[in-house]
């Protein structure tokens, strides 16, 4: 099985479903743990974050009442989605992730080499996604609540994350809507946030020719999903004894995760940056060293034979023998 082909097919279907689903009256709700941007008119389901930011914009006291119940319900639906597919939302569903993978295809097609972060740089930037996630909780709270009598944050901070999110600028384009590409000069906060959005969109196009899935490393959705790494039904397992630490997995990993190669004792290898794209399992040449599971049942296992097949063998070998 060539998993990357299957993955592209699934990503493509999900892309159509999430970007154009509305045209076919499909609605998967607005609590999806993936960047199915709510600014898309024809969307088939909406990103969790926009609603979440609105819901957090409440005086603390209100969370004891209706607002709290609404929030818990939203979080519950989000958690349910997250537990079932785990990070596969990133690797297999996310339309923005799919676009980045397509840019990677373009890069390899024109023959530009991928570059990698130095190990320390990679480690240093790991916290960015968590910081963004925490800010996404604190900023809306700060708009509705005053801390130590300080003034609350102005309205310009409303859906601050959406203002910087490059998916808001890019995904609506697929619905023929270019109106999100702007810098808002109505206030300094808005100007800075929307400018950041434009800059990140620029980075989306430029970094694609340097790195794989550059923006995913900083995505707060990845951070939110990583809270379910241990309990997710979809999982990635490793058998340390069978691993030779050949490094094929970490070299092919679009997220440059080193643990997948280094770890010899842990069995659950869904690490914080893992997107469950399963590229590591594809390039693993050791029998049963890596394994993707769903509810504990293996769904994709590394084998010597499968490895060589995916490397384009022994197709020709067989014909040689027959001749």
């Amino acid at each position, binding site marked *: 099985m060539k998993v990357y082909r299957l993955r592209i097919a699934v990503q493509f279907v999900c892309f159509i479903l999430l970007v154009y689903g509305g045209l076919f009256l499909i609605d998967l709700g607005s609590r999806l743990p993936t960047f199915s941007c709510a600014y898309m008119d024809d969307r088939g389901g909406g990103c969790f974050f926009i609603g979440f930011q609105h819901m957090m914009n409440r005086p603390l006291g209100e969370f004891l009442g209706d607002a709290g119940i609404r929030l818990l319900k939203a979080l519950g639906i989000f958690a349910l989605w997250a537990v079932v597919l785990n990070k596969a939302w990133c690797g297999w569903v996310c339309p923005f992730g799919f676009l980045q993978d397509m840019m990677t295809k373009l890069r*390899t097609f024109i*023959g530009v*080499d*991928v570059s990698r972060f*130095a*190990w320390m740089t990679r480690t240093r930037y790991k916290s960015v996604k968590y910081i963004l996630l925490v800010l996404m909780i604190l900023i809306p709270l700060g708009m509705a609540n005053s801390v130590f009598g300080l003034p609350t944050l102005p309205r310009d901070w409303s859906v601050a994350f959406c203002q910087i999110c490059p998916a808001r600028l890019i995904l609506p384009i697929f619905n023929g809507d270019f109106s999100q590409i702007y810098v808002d000069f109505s206030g300094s906060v808005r100007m800075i946030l929307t400018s950041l959005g434009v800059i990140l969109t620029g980075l989306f196009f430029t970094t694609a020719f340097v790195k794989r899935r550059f923006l995913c490393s900083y995505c707060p959705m990845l951070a939110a999903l990583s809270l379910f790494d241990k309990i997710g039904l979809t999982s990635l397992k490793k058998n*340390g*004894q*069978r*691993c*030779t*630490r*050949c*490094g*094929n997995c970490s*070299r*092919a990993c679009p997220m440059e995760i080193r643990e997948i*190669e*280094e770890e*010899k004792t842990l069995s659950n290898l869904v690490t914080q940056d893992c997107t469950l794209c399963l590229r590591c399992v594809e*390039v693993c*040449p050791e029998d049963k060293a890596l394994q993707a599971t769903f509810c504990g049942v293996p769904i994709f296992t590394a084998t*010597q*034979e499968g*490895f*060589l097949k995916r*490397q*384009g*063998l*022994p197709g*020709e*070998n067989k014909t040689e*023998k027959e001749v």
Partner: protein
Amino acid sequence: MDAQEKRRRLANKVKVNLAMTVREIFDAIEDEPSRPQNMAYFDRIFKTFTDGGKGAVPREEGRKLIGTYCLFVPEEIIYAAGGQPVRLCAGSYDSTEVGEEFLPDVACPMVKSEMGFSALPVLSFYQDCSLVALPASCDWKTKMGAIMEEHAPVMMMDMPRIKESEASREMWLSEIKRFKREVEKVTGVKVNRRRLREAIRLVQRAQVEFDRFHAIRKADATVISGRDALEVLNAYFYDHAESWTAAMSLLNDELEERIRNKTSVTKPKAVRLMLTGSPMVFPNWKIPTVIEELGGALVADEFCTSNRYLHDKVAVDEGSVNDMLHAIADRYLLPCTCPIFSTTVDRRDRLLQLVEDHRVEGVIYHTLKGCHPYDLETKLTETLLRDNGIPMLRIETDYSPQDVEQLRTRIEAFMETLTGKRRG
């Protein structure tokens, strides 16, 4: 008598001795019943050693010979540049005597033997190499380059010892790139994307057959002797990957047939043993020969000259030249279980996996006198195996045939303990 004449005579002496050794080995083999027929292809390669190694290495289309030592030199690059790799690691007692002139007494017999073949025209492919890539793996190999320089066009390759370090990996990748440039200079062929991809496929095809062979050795019936298993992998030192793969495919077909017919080269309940430790190269087959004469079943080995040689695979990811070079660099460095590396984890897990897969009952740990890296790991390995309920016998020896009888006694006693253990 002038030095030239002296050298010629010495070369002749080694040639005659080596021819005798090789003939004796194959005469004894001929008497063996139930040996796979397709071993004949591999025998031919080693039988050329009686005649200066003429025809051991295929030299079609005037391909330049690139000599390699250890298992760190990527032959994919050599094939891609239109060269023919030949691994020069040697196991001949007859040439160690010559090597002793250049190296200290405590040096391991392997480097002595290699030095002997480099200094004297005994086996032609040692003199025919246009480039000899020598990784600075152990201390002996590190200094051998300088000692060998006047006899061979040596290119030293720096070896990192700590696989877990980022700097090590970057350094090794740049060494691989330097090697590529050197090979290109020698052959005059530029390694491009298509040629490199093809070369990787060539080796991967050989690995398909190696994997098959490895799986065959897991069977209950010992369908091939451990010595023959050493021989087929040893033949890969000299042969072109394509011809080797074809011969291997035929042998594997025959062996799979044997599994179906339960044709074993040992008695049904023979003790299942594994060999590991310092490399064993033709004609240094004394230990496997003794084991099998005593009725033991050699079902696995973990040598850089055998099982480890073709196991690990290059994984092409994005497919650019740089991507492939990176993949090649990783393949030759990271999964290698050679004890020159600081870590012992990879080797330990590999041994345990082999013990499990091949249902090994006892391990024979071979160290060559002067082979410090393997010697250093003896204790750790012994403890590891003991903790897993597998007895280990340590044998320290060299290439000399003098201690064969003594070895026989020790191995026999070891095998008796194993049979005793079986009875409980």
